[in-house]
């Protein structure tokens, strides 16, 4: 479980996150949604410690993460897997080396054992016969799946995904969403996903946090989102004309 209390963050005097409090539960897919520039990525990067926060608390279970020093944070970070918007695979390493990287860094397993784990993770995300390929040789969907394999290679307790569907076609996006949901349930991970893709929201939104201009505006799940009385959320959810017509027909 990850608990955020009164989190605030600003850059050069401009406040990007304002007093956000939320709890992310394990075993379910937690989504942070909002318009581009609303502060989603800053919130996610603050939670994982890539940004130092101005005020507030970030609890990983019983550990107050944002007050830890670099060495103690490293212990928590071994339990974190992250999928970046652009996959962030290491260009100079092959698929196998990318997935093995966290194992090389943090385990003293032999090469055979590590290769076995790498192959298990790659099979788990349905990547086959691509161990020796470089990231530049992979499609967007494959890169995302390899990044997921790398993120789960150390059996993390926490999984963070920043726009996992950006740049993917709707069908591949659904496959990636389903994979993240499956892994979350299988390993009982605390998964937090940043997205503005409404397909993802309706597909895997077991818990949804909507932020706008750095403020928490709404919290709920995919069943409640269509009936919300939050005006900003409704503007976001029913942004396109098709969605508006659908809402009007339901209301009629």
């Amino acid at each position, binding site marked *: 479980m990850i608990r955020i209390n009164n989190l605030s963050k600003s850059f050069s005097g401009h406040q990007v996150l304002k007093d956000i409090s939320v709890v992310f539960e394990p075993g379910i897919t937690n989504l942070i949604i909002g318009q581009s520039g609303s502060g989603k990525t800053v919130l996610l990067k603050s939670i994982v410690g890539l940004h130092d926060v101005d005020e507030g608390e970030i609890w990983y279970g019983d550990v107050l993460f944002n007050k830890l020093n670099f060495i103690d944070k490293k212990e928590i970070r071994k339990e*974190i897997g*992250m999928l*970046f918007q652009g996959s*962030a695979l*290491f*260009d100079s390493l092959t698929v196998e080396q990318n997935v093995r*990287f966290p194992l090389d860094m943090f385990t003293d397993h032999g090469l055979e054992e590590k290769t076995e784990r790498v192959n298990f993770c790659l099979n788990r995300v349905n990547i086959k016969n691509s161990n020796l390929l470089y990231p530049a040789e992979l499609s967007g969907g494959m890169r995302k799946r390899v990044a997921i394999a790398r993120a789960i290679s150390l059996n993390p307790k926490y999984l963070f995904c920043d726009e996992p569907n950006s740049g993917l076609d709707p069908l591949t996006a659904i496959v990636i969403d389903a994979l993240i949901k499956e892994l979350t349930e299988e390993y009982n991970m605390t998964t937090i996903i940043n997205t503005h893709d409404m397909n993802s929201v309706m597909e895997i939104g077991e818990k949804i946090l909507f932020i706008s201009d750095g403020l928490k505006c709404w919290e709920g799940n995919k069943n409640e989102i269509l009936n919300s009385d939050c005006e900003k959320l409704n503007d976001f959810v029913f942004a396109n004309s098709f969605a508006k017509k659908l809402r009007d027909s339901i209301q009629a």
Partner: protein
Amino acid sequence: MREFIFLGLNSIGIIAIISFFMGAVITLQTAYNTENPIYPKYLIGLGCRDSIILEFSSTVSALILAGKVGSNIASEIGTMRVTEQIDALEIMGVNSASYLILPKLVATLIFNPFLTLMSIIIGIFGGWTAGTFLGVITSEDFIYGIQYAFIPFYITYSLIKMVFFAFIITSVSAFQGYYVDGGSLEVGRASTKAVVFSSVLILLFNVILTQLLLS
């Protein structure tokens, strides 16, 4: 090992070619500027040797390496920054600066002095080739000249300079790449800044080190 190949071995070609032709040009220019019977011919070999050892093989080679290796380091690390690969390392709890920069620093500090030695040998060979094949000096005079009044410390001086220059090239370029903020345009700018700042610092430290080591 990868860094030794990318930053060291891959620079051998350009350093060898440039050293050969610089040695040749220095010999020819010295010869055409000393066409006076009162100057012994072996001074052409001596001039070639000292120019190559004192200035070309360390300073000019370092400027060339600043362009090749410096821009390579800045663009590689800069691209890693803008594509979030450095963030990925940080998330995993890896000290990204140490992981990315230290191997490059070690590789250039160890390998660049070898490039200097190689440059000295090839440069003098280039001078001998041009001088003897174009008939401006005999082989015996050139070889006598490169042995005449030889001061071994000049080699040490050249190697010390190259160690400093290697540190400047790698650290300045890595800094420029590591702190890139933006996209591909900024990576290009960082790469240019890396070459410019490294070159200026190399020239500045060339003066300082020469004063300290040869005065």
